[in-house]
């Protein structure tokens, strides 16, 4: 059984704002019966304020709870305030969701965007679904949506992307494409994102440090090197000294010192600790 929070349990048992709104000012529909998730959101908007919100959901307990939470979060807010709500906010409101269920919160966020676009008289179809390439044919998930969810939720792995968007969760043929998108987005991540992670994780025990070093090399550094035909092997960790060996194209690169200091060490300092030192082992 899923480890749902009390808030999730309360809201799927007693969902608030279920139903439709006659003459709604905005309607947002996402999902389909094939996907196993669908949500229709109805809004009443007066003087730029969301006066009422109701929903209908085809989905599991967390889908019902996420939809209910969304309506509670937006009633009484201005359109501009509602626009800023992310799927992470919905999940936080619920006290968290199992990773595999995060796509329910993304569905809520998508329905809200669609409804507000409808209210503005814009094309009702959401830009995430109509613009850009469809990456996951099984669930109709597009490149822009995947990128957006990666950025907003600081996702690090393909499994994360699947949990948050369902992309790659069926036939799996799109997984290599998702991996490419993920690697591109990881490269773009601002240093501040890393600083936040670092700040949260200090002070570090030896075990925690080793774990973070491994994760950073695996999730951040290696994908960048692999883009250029290279690779990296973590050889040992002794306190704050990290021994690595460059592999593939990087092994014979004339500027491997630069790679080690400006990329590997820099990323480890960004994501793990300020004074970590990288030493090359040949």
């Amino acid at each position, binding site marked *: 059984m899923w480890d749902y929070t009390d808030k999730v349990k309360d809201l799927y*048992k007693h969902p608030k704002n279920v139903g439709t709104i006659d003459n709604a000012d905005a309607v947002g529909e996402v999902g389909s019966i094939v996907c196993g998730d669908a949500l229709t959101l109805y809004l009443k908007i007066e003087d730029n304020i969301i006066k009422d919100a109701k929903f209908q959901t085809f989905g599991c307990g967390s889908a019902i709870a996420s939809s209910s939470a969304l309506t509670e979060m937006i009633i009484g807010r201005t359109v501009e305030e509602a626009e800023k709500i992310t799927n992470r906010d919905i999940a936080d409101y619920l006290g968290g969701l199992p990773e595999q269920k995060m796509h329910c919160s993304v569905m809520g966020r998508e329905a809200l965007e669609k409804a507000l676009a409808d209210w503005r008289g814009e094309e009702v179809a959401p830009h995430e679904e109509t613009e850009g390439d469809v990456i996951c044919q099984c669930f109709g998930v597009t490149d822009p949506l995947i990128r957006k969810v990666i950025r907003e939720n600081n996702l690090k792995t393909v499994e994360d992307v699947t949990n948050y968007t369902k992309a790659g969760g069926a036939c799996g043929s799109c997984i290599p494409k998702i991996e490419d998108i993920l690697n591109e987005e990881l490269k773009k991540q601002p240093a501040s994102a890393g600083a936040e992670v670092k700040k949260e994780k200090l002070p570090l025990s030896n075990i925690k440090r080793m774990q973070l070093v491994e994760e950073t090399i695996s999730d951040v550094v290696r994908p960048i090197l692999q883009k250029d035909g290279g690779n990296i092997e973590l050889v040992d960790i002794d306190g704050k000294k990290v021994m690595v060996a460059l592999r593939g194209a990087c092994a014979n690169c004339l500027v491997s010192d630069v790679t080690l200091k400006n990329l590997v060490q820099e990323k480890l300092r960004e994501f793990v600790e300020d004074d970590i030192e990288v030493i090359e082992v040949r």
Partner: protein
Amino acid sequence: MNRTVYLDNNATTMVDPEVLEEMLPFLKERYGNPSSMHDFGGDVARDLERARMRVAELLGAENDYEIVFTGCGTESDNLAILGTLAYFRDRRHIITSKVEHPAVLNLYRKLEREGYRASYVPVDRDGKLDMEFLKKSLGDDTALVSIMHANNETGVIFPVEEIGRLCRERGVPYHIDGVQAAGKIPIDVKKIQCDLYSISGHKFHAPKGMGVLYIRRGTRIRPLMYGGHQERGRRPGTENVPGIVAMGKAAELALQNLPAEERVRALRDRLESGILARFSNVQLNGAKDARVPNTTNVGFEYIEGEAILLYLNEKGIAASSGSACSSGSLEPSHVLRAMGVPFTAAHGSIRFSLSRFTTGEEVDYTISALPEIIDRLLEISPFWDSATKQCRPVTI
């Protein structure tokens, strides 16, 4: 509400009190190792052999040494499949169905990655095997046919005797995953003409952690593990004596209670007809005729299975779902998909599985509890119009 109505017996069953009673001494004072050379262990060995005979009787085995105790149904399946392939190394083709339990299906996928050619026999809308496909698939290179006796999700019984004849004619080893059949329908491994037959104790009121593989006398098979002489070297390792004793007693009781399965069938039919009559958005998944007596699988259209389960749970009713969301995967059950159950119903599928301990009152309580749940979820569903009591246009 503090009551529990347990209708998930294909997942596991309660331990029969008589089984527990017989097992307890072996967890307390009778802890000897059956391989020991003293009476303290030797007496235990005799109890172990009595259990073996009881299981042999349940399966219709000719000799008790055809019974090999394992740790679970999955281990039995793996021993049967890998053990057979280890013997017939020159044959590279294997056959199973599309609706097998993961214990077989995932192993077959692994074997495919290792170079085996696998044929997956499809099923029709009722969940029945495509026997023509199976016949055509059998070849000189076929190392093994592994087909379940009864499906765990729908309860549909496969024509195991007909497959046995085909395999015997072609000289192909034949394994049956009988985990969902044992204790529910009569089993006669000689009549079926199978070489290997897997069962699991906790599906018929023994504790978890016990499996059996029937290995017909003379069947070519190699062990997965190497160690001592236990189980004639086919599954070495000190025996789980309390589990084996319990499983023996459970097998004896299951055989005795087979006639009582007609009562279970009547209760299952009462539940099924009660559900099918009450709702317009429900369909039966699986053949109505050839099914084990305890299982029904119904698909509620336009609502999702996990949500139904959670609402049932609130009323103290434990069932199971083939929906994606309840399993952590993103697609509904591979069994329902192989049957071609439409997505409109597959996502809302619920399996109710009864046992001889299920009461009529529990069945009636479940029938009476469902309308509030289904109506509430339909009211929430964007695909259902509560005013007209009809489905809204659905985009697929």
